[in-house]
């Protein structure tokens, strides 16, 4: 277990380091931000002055080391544009994104579990077909367009839900629905395949031969076995989910990390980019480690291997 933790830690550190380095290289390649920060009639001299006051005239190596020091001390500097602590700005946006990603994940996964179990329990081909069709249909609609359709129906036409902002629980519904449906389709596929595989396993036959109820076997035996690989996928999917919220955040004017980061990248607001990416990478590493630990707890075989 100690070895496992040490390995995990090494992997986490190198991952974060690599992400920061990539971000640094790309950042310096995209150019200096001064010209973007000053009004239209600012002169070249003004821009130069600003860039050098931001430290862009120092040797690249020094800037890189500075970034690394910032990474260790947790001080990523002030945002160039917003002139506030970059880490503070990132942390300010984190709850909104986590809220979105968390509910999308939980609802998507929960519905997928319910649907997959229902399919297995009823053995209904019709149900599986319907869910399959609906999934394909959902996957054929880009998130931004799906979100727009939701807004048109539920906000504009029915006036039932707010179309933007993060003011009440109601404003969570549409953005979460947009993301959760996508998650649902993905997890349903994985779970259905995993459960179907488990259904053919000998231990299921053993349990049935003992007189166990099908539902008992499904819930207490097959589901834990099937969910292990799905959990692993879910952890890996996290990076995608955090990145995938960008479009939804734009459409629903959701004050999340994705929007902040994409804006920061294009505005060359490197302190925010660095702070944000470190956060995302850390979140990814932590969640995946947690998933691994969970999986090892559920399935001690992997620990032995």
């Amino acid at each position, binding site marked *: 277990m100690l070895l496992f933790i040490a390995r995990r830690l090494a992997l986490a550190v190198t991952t974060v380091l690599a992400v920061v380095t990539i971000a640094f290289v790309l950042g310096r390649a995209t150019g200096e931000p001064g010209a973007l920060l000053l009004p239209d009639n600012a002169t070249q001299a003004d821009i130069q002055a600003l860039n050098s006051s931001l430290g862009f005239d120092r040797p690249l190596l020094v800037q890189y080391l500075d970034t690394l020091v910032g990474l260790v001390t947790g001080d990523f500097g002030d945002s160039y544009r917003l002139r506030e602590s970059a880490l503070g700005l990132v942390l300010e946006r984190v709850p909104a994104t986590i809220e979105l990603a968390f509910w999308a994940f939980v609802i998507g996964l929960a519905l997928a579990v319910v649907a997959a179990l229902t399919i297995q329990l009823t053995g209904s081909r019709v149900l599986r077909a319907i869910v399959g069709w609906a999934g394909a249909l959902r996957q054929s609609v880009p998130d931004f367009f799906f979100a727009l359709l939701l807004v048109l129906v539920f906000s504009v036409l029915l006036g039932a839900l707010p179309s933007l902002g993060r003011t009440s629980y109601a404003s969570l519904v549409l953005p979460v629905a947009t993301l959760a449906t996508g998650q649902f389709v993905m997890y349903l596929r994985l779970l259905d395949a995993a459960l179907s595989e488990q259904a053919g396993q*000998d231990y299921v036959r*053993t349990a049935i*031969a*003992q007189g*166990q109820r099908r539902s008992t076997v499904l819930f207490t*035996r097959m589901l834990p076995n099937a969910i292990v690989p799905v959990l692993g996928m879910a952890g890996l999917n996290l990076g995608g989910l955090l990145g995938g919220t960008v479009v939804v955040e734009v459409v629903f004017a959701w004050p999340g990390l994705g929007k902040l980061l994409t804006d920061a990248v294009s505005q060359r607001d490197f302190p925010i980019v660095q702070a944000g990416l470190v956060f995302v990478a850390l979140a990814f590493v932590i969640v995946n480690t947690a998933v691994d630990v969970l999986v090892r707890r559920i399935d001690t075989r992997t620990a032995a291997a």
Partner: protein
Amino acid sequence: MSTVLRIENLRIETDGDTPRTLVDGVSLRVDRGESLGVVGESGSGKSLTVLAALGLLPVGTRVTGGRIVLDDRVLVDVEADVWAGERELRALRGRTAAMVFQDPMSSLDPLRAVGAQVASAVRVHAPRLGRRAARERAIELLTSVGVRDAADRAATRPHQWSGGMRQRAMIAMAIAHDPLLLIADEPTTALDVTVQAQVMDLLAEVRERTGSALVLITHDLGLVAENSDRLTVMHHGRVVETGATRAVLAAPAEDYTRRLMAAMPAEQERATPAVRTGEADALVADNIVVDYRVSGRKTPVRAVDGVSVRIMAGETVAVVGESGCGKSSLAKAVLGIQPASAGTVVVGGVPVRAELTGRSAAQRELAQIVFQDPYSALDPRLTVHELVAEPLRIRRAYNSAAVATLLADVGLDESYAKRLPGQLSGGQRQRVGIARALALRPKLLVLDEPVSALDVSIQAQVLTLLDTLQREHGLGYLFISHDLGVVRSIADRVIVMQHGRVVEEAPTAQIFSDPQHPFTRQLLAAVPRLDGPRRTARPAAA
């Protein structure tokens, strides 16, 4: 009244538009407390028949005719259109009739503690029993089937148990409710012969206690002979012969039964050795040590601990022992697949490096291997022709005539050349595997359990083939096996291994007639034989 299970005229077909009949017109009967052996080769329908009795048919198959009566309850009567419902079946499963399956690893939920699984088998028909009580009962059951320290072990998961222990746990679950009928489907096939004997002893013992009847489904006539009162022989989905075990085996009425018995390895040594003198030894392996590194452990595990083997040209040396004794590791070390950490290997008079990558192509050709599992030994995508051609292609010595000759050598005609492994029987695959191994004209053939996955009748054919080839080419055989019956009929010399060391080495006849080491004796005693001792479990009531 005294009949527990009665199957009449059972027919099982596959689903679909063009159903295939898998079981046709099978009738059998199990009386209270008795033991019925159902024998047949793979595909004979023996498992399906008995699985149908509990409504456990795999998906894609169904009962289309006949009657099944379990404990006076009609579960199926196709003509009367009686079909037991799920609820009714559930009440019977595990209580009236319980099953023990072949592979105790996959038959247990890998994620749940064994004790919990036993406890849940207890609670399923005793819902009012509390968790704690069920747990205690589970430990009691585990103890009763010979699991030591059951209270501690109950909390561990199946992968931490040995195969024999797992099968004990399966039996503990099966007897949780003292069923009238125990159905054991190849309960010992995956186990070592000594463990097999222990498990069969245990089954007899628990039946003594519970008075359960037993249906023993197996392909092993010896096992049936020792463990059943009556016998039903099945072939191609039909019952060939049925009757009292002793009577049937003493005087088989049907041709098929006779053939089955004839195919069992003869209990005598082979008459004429094929050893050639004057040629280089096929193998001289000296003081071989094999270590495995295991993650999480500092010291490597020593699988083979200083074993020496010498095989002359045309000689067959068998290495026997239980799983984990190091016999396969020894074979792999000889081949270089798992390099020996110490010792020397000389194949066909040529000293070779320990690791495979250190051996030249010409050196590698000297020793070839025939694998145990004919399913994994052949690339499923390649035709027979291509499979046999591969070693020749590696040597850039391919010509199609050579392939045809090799196929002919192993008794496969031209028509097989275009088939895929999936279209071959197990025996045919093993012939292809042998042809591949022979393609490079090796001096030494390592045969790693070459027949253990085959039905007895096929086993005999393959062994005959191996014998013929040895005489023809003067091959040395390193024959790895756990099956002493097979070893007796083919080996010139036998090496018995235990815990990575050689405990006894002697000519075959001497091993069987005068075993020196207690372990050898134990191994020999465990082999089920047609005339072996009977395990009876007649309950007092009968």
